């Protein structure tokens, strides 16, 4: 069975900047049952930084091999408006992804551009999907804009014309970013106005999943990405969440994703694939459900045939 991880990032400080991890560290520290001493806090910061040290995606590819993951979707996030003093421009971030696409056939990339960049941002997105082989759009609402922001509509026009999916982040993020626009309902105006564009709600398979699930149930062009499910596996809630979705007929709307490198501490990519497969072994998922979640649904969105990375959509 082909497996597609619909939600990954290049683990590199040029792609996921230190400011992002600073916010995450402060959240983890505040959640721990007791205070860390100074040395432990420093060590925690070091370990979080280590998560983000795979700029050539060598470790990711090795993990994909072990787990039997055929393809991973790498998502560009445009932090350039909200974070200052980033080491490279958003165009250079795209080019880092393009270099990886040129080197390996294991990856698909989604462009990501903050709509506040205006015409230049739109031109970058167009170049990414026309010349550089990007096959979708990533919207990162924690940077401070809604996925239904009208400045994104020209991007969605391009997605509609080229049959490109849009993946938008749902739920909280780094504490250095805004959560204001991260509710699943934030995508509704865009999804209503662009019925030919498929919107994937990133993490909404497990985060704010009842709202996301209702949207996916009633809007044919809304899908749910399960990345972040690792935390729910740890809490023991994942299977109940999955049952909730299945009871609403959403097996063709759920997409396997891991959010590499964020959850690396808690297990290998192989463990996360096995967690899905084990749901089938436990009788929760049918073989067809498993196939749909691990790749079939994402293949449909990307126009990929079962055993090939060829597409009839973006190139």
């Amino acid at each position, binding site marked *: 069975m082909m497996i597609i991880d619909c939600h990954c990032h290049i683990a590199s400080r040029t792609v996921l900047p230190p400011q992002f991890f600073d916010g995450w560290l402060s959240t983890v520290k505040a959640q721990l049952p007791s205070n860390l001493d100074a*040395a*432990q806090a420093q*060590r925690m910061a070091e*370990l979080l930084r280590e998560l983000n040290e795979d700029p050539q995606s060598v470790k990711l590819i090795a993990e994909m091999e072990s787990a039997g993951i055929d393809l991973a979707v790498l998502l560009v996030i445009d932090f350039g408006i909200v974070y200052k003093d980033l080491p490279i421009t958003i165009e250079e971030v795209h080019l880092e992804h393009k270099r990886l696409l040129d080197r390996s056939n294991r990856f698909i990339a989604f462009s990501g551009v903050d709509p506040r960049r205006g015409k230049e941002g739109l031109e970058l997105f167009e170049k990414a999907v026309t010349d550089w082989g990007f096959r979708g759009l990533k919207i990162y609402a924690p940077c401070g804009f809604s996925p239904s922001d009208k400045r994104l509509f020209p991007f969605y026009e391009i997605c509609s014309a080229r049959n490109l999916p849009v993946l938008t982040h749902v739920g909280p993020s780094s504490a250095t970013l805004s959560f204001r626009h991260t509710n699943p309902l934030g995508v509704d105006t865009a999804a209503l106005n662009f019925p030919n564009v498929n919107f994937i709600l990133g993490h909404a398979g497990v985060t704010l999943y009842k709202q996301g699930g209702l949207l996916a149930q009633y809007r044919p062009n809304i899908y749910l990405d399960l990345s972040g499910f690792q935390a729910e*596996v*740890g809490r*023991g809630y994942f299977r109940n969440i999955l049952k909730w979705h299945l009871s609403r007929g959403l097996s063709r709307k759920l997409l396997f994703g891991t959010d590499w490198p964020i959850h690396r*501490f*808690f297990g*290998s990519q192989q463990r996360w694939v096995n967690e899905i497969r084990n749901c089938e072994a436990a009788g929760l998922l049918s073989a067809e459900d498993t196939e749909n979640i691990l790749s079939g649904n994402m293949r449909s969105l990307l126009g990929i045939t079962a055993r090939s990375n060829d597409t009839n959509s973006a190139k």
Partner: protein
Amino acid sequence: MTQIALNENQLAVKQMLSGLCQKNLNHNELQGEMKLFEDLGVDSLQFIRLILEIESSVGRKVFDVETIANLKTVNDLYDVLETKA
């Protein structure tokens, strides 16, 4: 099953684990083959805390991201301490 003698660091880890384990296991009931997440109910925050406490206890860095990701059982923790502490 043969009981393997634990060194001082491994015993300290065993003590820490029985303290945070959600299954009300005492120090003696905690077995090496038990799984940290499934059997002991260690959650992600407790796991992070455990890693940091172990390093504080042995007074040096013993984990990296790869070793952390591959920790499944109590014995895995003992092995890291055996080889790196």
